[in-house]
């Protein structure tokens, strides 16, 4: 499969123009993204107050003694940045290991460890010249060795060794030549025979020349390089320690902006500025003191008020009260908003426990407990009028309000499309994806309309009664109890839906899911009926937003399940009432995917597919991630920024303010970005 270079270069341009650049976020789209950390943004998305005048100049603390103190309640599981796909763990790598390239605060790619790079005509062989004289330092900050191209190769070999249990290695598959073959060969998978590592597409030409060979042209390759799976590690040390690499602060070396000077699990994690870093002059905060506290959400704000720490997240329970108090109101600001995540309500089209990959004991026949009458739901969900009635009955403002409170208008974060506004802008015409004529109407259309909902209810009741559906239809809504506010949002949703549609029609049942492995036990196992799902973009193209819905076919004609969380094909294979609708959507997507030489046409085709998806209520768009309210002495707009990956977790470039960032300063910064 060789894509024309034109579209490739187009996409590369998209990537560099857009703030939303592609990096492959691990296995994207957890439904429980509560842990996802700091966040990227589009220009001015949170600038709710653009009229505000330019504030007084921001005053910073003297750089030499700037200590940034913060509490955390979620401990890292490992320091090993080569194996963990957990956002929380990746903060370590982000701050202590430099990558070939990095982002600036405007989301543009800049050289970092690589000073220059070239690629061949096919864009399949990339050659990077490394910055010379870079040092690995140990946990005391003392230099140990030079950073060489071999360190990148060693790290990749480590990741592609199955025993090391890297959970991000999959991101290399299909990108780096033979990465998948090598990994699966070592893992002893059927159909794979062991191959030598020299056949894998990574090579150190000399100490300062690194060459990657790709399996296929990857338009977003450069942005991938900032992700953990392309990070280097000191080769001899990896060799020596193997699986016990990075089990503590002194079993790893650092070459990034900071080194971990102390790590005591559930006590503290201290980052100290690495003065030997090539860009040390742009590292402003000397020390980052992270202290563990299980009650950080309760204690944190109080400690900020007493000046004992410099940053805390305000839960939505208390943010109103902080805003209402004139003493604390000026201290409240927000995290930088995110654009790479889209939330939407998913209908479950597969209530059968067919997915042997995620089969769990005690699951027989139905993927949902029989007390929720999944057979009833199966008929109902495949009736378009039923789905439409729910679509029109969902008032997203009321659930969004749970997360925002009065502090910011809830509609700021609503999205009427799956592809967030501003995510994909046509590099040629400059037209946003959501402005495509096929979807522009939907993009400005709020689904909430009780009259329409009731109209569809009448239609659905009539049709479904004839099919033997008993009313009220039970609608099982699940949430992850460890995700802040999700529980409360479900409570609001339940009540709001029932009040619009009537308890004679649907009976919304809210049930907590497991807090660990929610994704595999609920979303992948189809143990829900209506679920607020999310998807994290994997690359800067609208196609990424079809991944959670579209299912390709295997060679034998069956639909591919893979790791995509998509189950709509069951509507087709089961021969349900919505078979034609789903089939039509799949056809539209396939058509759009074929267009690779004209971005406008491609976008238009994807817009048509997405519009069809929403119009037929196969899914109900919800919104983007609501950034947390915070009191903080750093300005999130000064840090590195990318739509995906770990750049946003980096402290490099941020300065410590002598006061808490105000909303006005925040907005001013937002406008200038």
């Amino acid at each position, binding site marked *: 499969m060789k894509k024309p270079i034109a579209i490739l270069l187009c996409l590369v341009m998209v990537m560099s123009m857009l703030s939303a650049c592609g990096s492959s976020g691990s*296995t994207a789209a957890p439904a429980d993204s509560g842990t996802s950390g700091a966040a990227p943004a589009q220009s001015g998305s949170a600038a709710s107050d653009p009229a505000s005048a330019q504030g007084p100049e921001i005053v910073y603390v003297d750089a030499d003694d700037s200590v940034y103190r913060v509490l955390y309640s979620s401990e890292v*599981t490992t320091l090993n940045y080569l194996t963990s796909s957990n956002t929380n763990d990746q903060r370590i790598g982000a701050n202590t290991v430099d990558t070939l390239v990095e982002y600036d605060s405007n989301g543009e790619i800049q050289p970092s460890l690589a000073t220059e790079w070239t690629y061949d005509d096919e864009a399949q062989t990339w050659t990077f010249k490394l910055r010379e004289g870079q040092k690995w330092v140990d946990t005391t900050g003392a230099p140990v060795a030079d950073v060489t191209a071999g360190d990148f190769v060693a790290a990749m070999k480590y990741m592609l060794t199955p025993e090391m249990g890297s959970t991000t290695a999959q991101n290399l598959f299909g990108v780096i030549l033979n990465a998948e073959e090598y990994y699966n060969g070592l893992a002893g998978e059927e159909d794979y025979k062991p191959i030598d590592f020299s056949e894998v597409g990574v090579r150190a030409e000399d100490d300062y020349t690194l060459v990657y060979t790709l399996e296929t042209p990857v338009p977003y390759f450069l942005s991938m390089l900032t992700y953990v799976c392309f990070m280097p590690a000191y080769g001899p040390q990896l060799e020596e320690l193997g699986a016990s690499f990075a089990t503590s602060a002194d079993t790893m070396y650092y070459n990034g902006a900071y080194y971990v000077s102390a790590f*005591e699990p*559930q006590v503290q994690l201290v980052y100290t500025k690495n003065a030997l870093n090539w860009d040390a002059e742009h590292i402003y905060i000397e020390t980052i003191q992270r202290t563990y*506290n*299980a009650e950080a959400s309760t204690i944190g704000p109080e400690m900020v008020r007493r000046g004992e720490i410099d940053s805390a997240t305000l839960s939505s329970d208390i943010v109103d009260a902080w805003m209402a108090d004139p003493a604390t109101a000026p201290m409240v600001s927000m995290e930088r908003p995110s654009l790479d995540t889209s939330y939407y309500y998913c209908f479950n089209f597969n209530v059968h426990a067919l997915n042997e990959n995620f089969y769990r004991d005690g699951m027989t026949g139905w993927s949902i407990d029989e007390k929720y009458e999944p057979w009833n739901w199966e008929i109902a969900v495949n009736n378009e009028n039923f789905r439409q009635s729910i679509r029109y009955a969902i008032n997203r403002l009321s659930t969004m309000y749970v997360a925002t409170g009065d502090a910011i208008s809830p509609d700021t974060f609503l999205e009427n499309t799956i592809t967030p506004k501003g995510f994909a802008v046509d590099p040629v015409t400059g037209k946003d994806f959501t402005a495509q004529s096929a979807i522009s109407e939907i993009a400005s259309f709020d689904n909430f309309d009780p009259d329409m909902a009731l109209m569809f209810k009448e239609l659905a009741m009539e049709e479904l009664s004839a099919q033997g559906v008993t009313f009220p239809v039970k609608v099982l809504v699940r949430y992850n109890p460890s995700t802040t506010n999700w529980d409360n949002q479900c409570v609001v949703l339940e009540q709001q839906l029932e009040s619009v549609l009537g308890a004679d029609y649907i009976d919304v049942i809210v049930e907590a899911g497991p807090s*660990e492995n929610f994704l595999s036990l609920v979303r992948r196992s189809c143990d829900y009926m209506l679920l607020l799902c999310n998807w994290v973009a994997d690359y800067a193209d609208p196609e990424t937003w079809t991944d959670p819905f579209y299912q390709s076919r295997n060679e034998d004609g069956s639909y591919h399940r893979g790791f995509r969380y998509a189950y709509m094909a069951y509507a087709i294979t089961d021969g349900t009432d919505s078979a034609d609708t789903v089939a039509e959507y799949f056809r539209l997507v396939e058509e759009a995917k074929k267009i690779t030489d004209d971005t406008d046409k491609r976008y238009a085709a994807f817009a048509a597919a997405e519009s069809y998806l929403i119009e037929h209520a196969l899914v109900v768009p919800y919104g983007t991630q609501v950034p947390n309210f915070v009191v903080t002495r750093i300005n999130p707009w000064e840090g590195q920024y990318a739509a995906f990956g770990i750049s946003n977790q980096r402290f490099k470039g941020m300065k410590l303010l002598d006061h808490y960032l105000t909303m006005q300063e925040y907005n001013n910064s937002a406008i200038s970005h």
Partner: protein
Amino acid sequence: MAKYLTKRLLRSVVTLFIVTCVVFTLMRAMPIEGYFQNYEKLTDAQIQAGLREQGLLDPLPVQLWHFFQGLFRWDFGVSHTYRTNVPVTEILRDKLPVSIRLGCLSILTSMVFGIPIGTMMARHKGRFFDKLGTVFIVFIQAVPAAVYFLLIQLYGTTALGVGLLFDAANPRCWILPVLSMALGNTAYYAMWLRRYMVDESNKDYVTLARAKGVSENAIMFRHIFRNSFVPLVQYIPSSFLNTIIGSIYVESLYSIPGMGGLLVTVIEKSDNNMVQAIVLLYATVGVIGLMLGDILMTVLDPRITLAGKAGDR
């Protein structure tokens, strides 16, 4: 005496063995996710291979045998999700001393406060001090610790002029956590000591002593207190364990790196090896605590000869 001690020790060992077997067997019922750092992303083949490698597909008795072998090598396996690949013993080694220190301090504090309060209450039975103590005891019993611990932290730190978080180097930082942890036991000791002393003071020998003209103070401290203290002693070792487990509130509020919240944390992360090790550790401390309590009683009170009725503690 020696015979009794041997017997008591042997019985504790047997109990511990049974407890270990039961806990180990129960742990096999835990979800297998807890044996992998990244269960969600593994294929079935990888999971099976991992289970085989960890010996989890062996028959239960074999697993148990391996486990006991490991015990003698002081090997509890490694943590999977809490701190990947770090030996369980190493994690516990860091945490235990803190908990033990806090636990001892708080037990000591509660004795320092609880015993005088209980004595004074008994001495002034029905009068003001008794009533004041009663209010205190009732308050501690009725109000959830989670609430008053937080109040103590918020107001106490302001009053003492210390930070909200614990700092081992600053002696003043020890006051509030230790005090909070001691409150429950203080009330407990005071309550029972008062009870025993009031009961004791109704006994005939006290009346006799009084009739003989022994001073009220001498009766109180030489006779009543000494006799009432004996049954209280039995509680002390086991209240130590409860203090450590109960320290979860205090530890999470003050960021104290102890054992208190560890069990809950590893359960939430379903780190099976850690859960197993901690439950066994607590069970061991529990067994030893009960045994110590019994032995202390025997030592302190010569009237008690447990040898005759072993089997009924």
